[in-house]
């Protein structure tokens, strides 16, 4: 059940009708919990077994931490459980493939059979959400949630279940416990966010995908101009695909009176890679920062340890995205660029480089890293980049209209970053924007229920 589908619209109207009838926070929560299980089970009822297991295991782990005082043991069990689930459902094919490659290299004529396991959508998101809460309890940052129903509602909350934002228990659970009364402003903001997200996905991301898919599908057939344009198209596709999903998720939650955290803040306006990670998929970046980078020592203990911690975090972040070496390479590239940026930053001259030059430089570097992310494998990514520099620079065959849209999107981000168009948040402009986005989709966009890129993670 995708957000931009008729099925979701019917589902949401039904859930919302029951939700509106509920008088107490308890009933509101129970209705949303029921809705969340229907929402997730709609993909495949078997998924419900998995999410129920995650809820029960982490709930019990925290309970046992409190009752026995053996916090480290139960935290370890919770981490092992999460890693085991991810390894089984997400990485088993990757692991087997790599073992078979090693067998082949050393001359063992035997291949392990590929597991062919059903990949449950959203698994990386709700596992991280639940594990994050367990770690927060371990560090004393949050109280134990005593109600299993409440904990289940937190983990399975349907707006953010499939692709985040990866919420924190101490932000979402208190809202759910005293479930706020839905105000007019919540509905206005929720509807606006939902329509904006739908526009980003259907009118922008899915359009850019037409060109990006064509170029990345066969990079050998294209020369420099098209390859650069293809990389640019994917750069905007993934941003609008994922931020569009997040907007819809936040919009749906807001209509229910719940405020989910921001996940994007003009990431292509970043002036350093560190800045980029503070603007892109903020909930995941902060998760890795708080639960991996800092516990590993963060930037304490010298430059070497800091670099080690950064590489570990970025490589794992890459692997989180997908069971493939190109994602690991993508994480590695970010770690390299980030480390290089740190070293360059020590040269006093760099401070004199204007911010806009730094923004453009980082944007170009980010575009290059996306090539690793989008390519089928590392070899394809290197071929892609190699051909950018070795083939003739010809005029790209990107549609004129698409090139114009990309330019418009980039300009819009600059204007937004420098607060030159703040008037668009005024009620009158919001109304006009809703009209424009809906009308544009009705007239120019052919309905298709294509999935979101981040659903595969």
């Amino acid at each position, binding site marked *: 059940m995708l957000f931009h589908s008729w099925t979701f619209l*019917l589902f949401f109207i039904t859930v919302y009708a029951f939700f509106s009838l509920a008088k107490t926070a308890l009933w509101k929560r129970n209705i949303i919990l029921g809705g969340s299980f229907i929402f997730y089970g709609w993909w495949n009822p078997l998924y419900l077994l998995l999410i129920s297991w995650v809820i029960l295991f982490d709930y019990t782990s925290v309970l046992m931490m409190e009752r026995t005082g053996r916090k480290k043991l139960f935290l370890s069990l919770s981490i092992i459980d999460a890693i085991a689930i991810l390894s089984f459902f997400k990485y088993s094919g990757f692991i087997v493939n790599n073992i078979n490659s090693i067998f082949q290299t050393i001359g063992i004529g035997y291949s392990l059979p590929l597991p062919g396991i059903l990949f449950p959508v959203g698994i990386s998101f709700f596992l991280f959400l639940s594990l994050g809460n367990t770690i927060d309890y371990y560090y004393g940052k949050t109280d134990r949630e005593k109600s299993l129903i409440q904990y289940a509602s937190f983990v399975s909350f349907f707006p953010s279940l499939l692709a985040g934002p990866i919420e924190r228990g101490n932000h979402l659970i208190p809202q759910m416990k005293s479930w706020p009364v839905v105000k007019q*402003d919540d509905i*206005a*903001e929720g509807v606006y966010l939902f329509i904006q997200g739908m526009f980003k996905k259907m009118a922008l991301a899915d359009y850019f995908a037409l060109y990006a898919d064509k170029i990345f599908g066969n990079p050998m057939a294209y020369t420099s101009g098209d390859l650069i344009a293809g990389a640019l198209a994917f750069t905007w596709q993934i941003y609008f695909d994922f931020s569009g999903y997040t907007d819809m998720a936040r919009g749906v939650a807001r209509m229910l009176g719940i405020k989910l955290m921001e996940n994007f803040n003009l990431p292509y306006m970043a002036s350093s890679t560190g800045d980029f990670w503070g603007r892109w998929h903020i909930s995941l970046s902060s998760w890795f920062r708080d639960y991996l980078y800092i516990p590993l020592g963060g930037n304490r203990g010298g430059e070497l340890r800091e670099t080690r911690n950064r590489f570990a975090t970025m490589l794992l972040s890459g692997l989180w995205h997908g069971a493939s070496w190109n994602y690991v390479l993508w994480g590695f590239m970010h770690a390299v660029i980030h480390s290089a940026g740190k070293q360059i930053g020590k040269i006093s001259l760099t401070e004199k480089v204007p911010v806009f030059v730094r923004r453009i430089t980082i944007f170009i570097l980010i575009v290059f890293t996306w090539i690793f992310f989008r390519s089928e494998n590392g070899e394809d990514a290197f071929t892609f980049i190699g051909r950018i520099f070795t083939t003739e620079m010809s005029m790209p065959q990107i549609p004129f209209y698409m090139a114009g849209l990309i330019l418009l999107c980039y300009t819009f981000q600059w204007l937004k970053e420098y607060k030159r168009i703040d008037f668009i948040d005024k009620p009158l402009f919001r*109304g*006009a924007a809703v009209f424009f986005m809906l009308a544009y989709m009705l007239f*120019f966009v052919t309905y298709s229920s294509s999935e979101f890129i981040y659903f595969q993670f």
Partner: protein
Amino acid sequence: MLNKLKYITISILVLAGITAVIPVIFPFTDTASFTGNYRIPYSMGENYYLYSRYSGVIADESRIPVIGDSVIWGHYTDSENTLPAHLNRLNAKPLFVNMGLDGIHPAAMNGLIEIYSSGLKNKKVIAGVNLLWMSSARHDLSGQVNSEINHKILLPQLSQEIPSYKPSFEEKISASITRSIPFFAWIDHLRLSKFSGKSFYLWTMDNPDKSIIEYFSSKGDEFKAPEGIQPEKMQEQEIEWITTDKSLQWKFMIDTLISLKKNGNKVAAVITPFNTYMMTAGSRKKYFSILAEMEWILRENGITPIIPLIMEKKYFADSSHPNAEGYRLIAEDMMKNREFLEFIGD
């Protein structure tokens, strides 16, 4: 000062109003060409808005609509050599209107009449019945799941099960909503009739260098009637006929005819000829037996049956489509048929 919610609500309401009014008032309707031996262009086969407008215009005239599939539409011939065109030529005045739609089958025809031709009331209506749709379980939609069914949006989505059609819940809901809101049919009409049948985005992908203005002026491909099979190449085949008691398509056909009757129409069913030279002796025997059953069922339901002429294979373009000469022969035969003359003459 209005708040955010009021502005958004007003925007949505204004847009809803515009989408409701546009299909009614917008002049992209091609009414001027609904004359003579007009037929819905091949590339407009899924333009239900155009069909609905066409049907609406014909409903207000005294001419007799001839509904049906590609056999009535005339897949192997031009618009001046179809069955309605030949009937017009033989009749004292142009009385017959080609309301066939290429590729439509009885189950979809049922939806087409119910949703987009509900204005056909208190008229004489002729329906073409093509036995092709009963020539296998695949054609009958009673076999295995088939993803290549034409005009899926016209099939029953929630009310009835069709064994060959197993859409997802989303597809069912989407089809039901799309056909209930005229604006969506109008958008398809614009795309098909003005914009080469493509969405704007796909058009820009196919024409990256062209200016956007050209998108609004491009035309769809003209239809060229395909070559039929040469008579010497026609081979006998075993046909797995689905009998009338088991055929899903026949059930839909009868439902359509009865529904037309309920709307006060006087209905005749022309069972279009099947190429008996392209079937084995056993299949031929069964074919005649099905024909007899059909005639009986039609009469039972108060529908005038027009039984097909047996034609030589040179008058066919394939197993079920006559060629231009074939249509001429059928029209001549019909114009000698006492029941048919009575039907059109009242």
